[in-house]
């Protein structure tokens, strides 16, 4: 599943609702920030400026640049500059081993994307913009010019950085100022390094009564929007009409399951929130019931050439299952499955997928042969699948298809890319093309689809 592989990185937090203390004074959460530590202090950046959380490895060093420029980094094909805020602000940089990736953010500026290295990414915090106070010079080792405000949340003081001012197209004068700030703070930083270890992760503080809360017990759509914004920044999961219903229902469920402590503060919480999203039999073979339900969805009168498109095939379980299923449904047809994934490691191992007999339900039996290293799929099945290393949003040469299995892929694309891929799906449609999205992805709001769901298999016919 493409999006899932892009994955969640960093120490992350999702702020949901607290819900309970109804009598207490409430604040409207209208500002969210991604928080991180630099030299042991807490900082925040407006979530709207953050494209994603990243782990940086293997910078390409660029000679003759400012010392705070760590180098350039290849972000899935886009080359971006990466700067180290600790060096920029002359804060202590902790020792690290070579193969340890660095925590960081990809920040969206008016002038483009830029990577920022920090000590550790902490969490996403929702606050009321009214509670942001103007900066006071005492708060930071950072020139006051680059601070857009200070806010207290959960007993911690966050300094909100104005990334546009720090990293945007600055004049030479500004650059000089950065350097002089750095110089004057050098002494402080040194002292600071003795006092604290910046890598130490703090204990999660108890939620205080004064913290901002969601206005409603039930998941109102604005709460869903807030959660969605956090999900998107941290995992790439984008709430649109295809999964909005799921997000809202899940949020209600989450709030009743976690009564009194619905705040999502750890990586585990984010994963737990999305854990019920994924389709069944993800990364493993399908049991007979599921296969039969998908079989019922397929049109009865297909023959000749049957083409299947399977983006997000992962290690290949899905593609092999589809090939076996289509073969059993149409024994005479010529089958071609175009299976693709953007995870090079996973998809490279797919053509020679290794498994044991115990992993494979009985209905696959006619399509298995005994190889020297355990069971494998027959050459007829293997030859019908074409595994490709491919990004689903890139142009590709997949011909018109009879079946498109795209489970849990769309939700992890940006809204624009979702639209693009849906257009591609339409372009590749034949007369009665069946589209199988994820179990919690609904194509009806998109328009142009008729639902033909069977049991656990959510499916749509184009037209």
């Amino acid at each position: 599943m493409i999006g899932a592989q892009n994955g969640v990185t960093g120490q992350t937090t999702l702020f949901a609702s607290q819900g309970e203390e109804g009598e207490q004074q409430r604040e409207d959460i209208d500002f969210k920030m991604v928080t991180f530590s630099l030299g042991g202090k807490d900082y925040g950046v407006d979530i709207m400026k953050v494209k994603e959380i990243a782990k940086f490895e293997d910078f390409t060093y660029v000679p003759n640049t400012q010392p705070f420029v760590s180098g350039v980094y290849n972000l899935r094909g886009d080359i971006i500059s990466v700067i180290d805020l600790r060096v920029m602000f002359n804060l202590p940089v902790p020792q690290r081993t070579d193969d340890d990736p660095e925590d960081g953010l990809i920040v969206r500026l008016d002038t483009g994307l830029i990577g920022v290295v920090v000590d550790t990414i902490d969490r996403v915090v929702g606050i009321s913009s009214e509670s942001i106070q103007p900066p006071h010079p005492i708060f930071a080792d950072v020139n006051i010019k680059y601070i857009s405000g200070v806010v207290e949340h959960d007993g911690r003081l966050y300094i909100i950085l104005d990334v546009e001012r720090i990293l945007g197209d600055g004049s030479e004068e500004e650059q000089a100022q950065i350097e002089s700030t750095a110089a004057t703070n050098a002494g402080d930083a040194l002292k600071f390094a003795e006092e604290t270890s910046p890598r130490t992760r703090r204990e999660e503080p108890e939620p205080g009564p004064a913290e901002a809360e969601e206005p409603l017990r039930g998941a109102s759509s604005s709460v869903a929007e807030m959660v969605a914004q956090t999900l998107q920044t941290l995992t790439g999961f984008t709430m649109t009409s295809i999964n909005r219903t799921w997000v809202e229902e899940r949020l209600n469920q989450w709030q009743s399951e976690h009564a009194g402590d619905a705040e999502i503060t750890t990586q585990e919480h984010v994963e737990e929130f999305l854990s019920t999203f994924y389709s069944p039999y993800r990364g493993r073979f399908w049991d007979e019931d599921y296969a039969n339900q998908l079989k019922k969805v397929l049109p009865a009168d297909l023959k000749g050439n049957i083409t299947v498109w399977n983006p997000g095939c992962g290690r290949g379980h899905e593609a092999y299952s589809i090939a076996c299923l289509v073969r059993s449904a149409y024994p005479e047809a010529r089958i071609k499955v175009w299976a693709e994934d953007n995870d090079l490691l996973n998809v490279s191992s797919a053509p020679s997928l290794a498994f044991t007999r115990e992993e494979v339900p009985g209905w696959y039996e006619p399509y298995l042969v005994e190889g020297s290293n355990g069971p494998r799929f027959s050459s007829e099945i293997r030859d019908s699948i074409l595994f490709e290393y491919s990004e689903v949003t890139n142009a590709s040469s997949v011909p018109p298809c009879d079946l498109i299995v795209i489970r849990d892929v769309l939700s992890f694309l940006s809204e624009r890319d979702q639209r693009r891929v849906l257009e591609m799906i339409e372009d590749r449609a034949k007369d009665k093309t069946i589209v199988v999205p994820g179990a919690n992805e609904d194509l009806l709001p998109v328009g142009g689809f008729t639902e033909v769901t069977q049991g656990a298999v959510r499916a749509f016919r184009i037209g």
Partner: protein
Amino acid sequence: MRVEYINPFVESAYNILNEVLHVEVARGDLYLKSTAAPVLGVAAIIGLAGDVEGRVLLDMSRETAIDIASAMLKSMDMDPITEMNEMGRATITELANMITGQAVTKLHDLGFKFDLTPPALVTGDNMEISNTNVEALIVPMEMPQGKIEINVAIRERG
């Protein structure tokens, strides 16, 4: 791009560069680019046909091209070059031929049959290459002379 094609290109690029330059060659992370991509300055193009259609592009800056051509010429006891002259162009073209040739040989052993077109060398600033409906696999290779990007776009005949 079909996963079976990836390794032959990566391996042959690594082998050939190591062999002709006698230097430490480091392979960068592979990634995908959508159709239109800028070209660094010197590009050797070889077309592929047969079961598939596509092309291989060896892309590098002019300085890198001169340094690499010089290193190759010196290893054959010939004079190095200081500008991209006829000898330089011929040398880079030959490099592209060697890498693609070895990759195609490896693919042939795996049962995929490709034909090659003679290489063409294109030089200039601010160039862009675009193919319709093929995404390109980029294999970056780093060496003391600079960076070469091997840009492979192959699609199956549908």
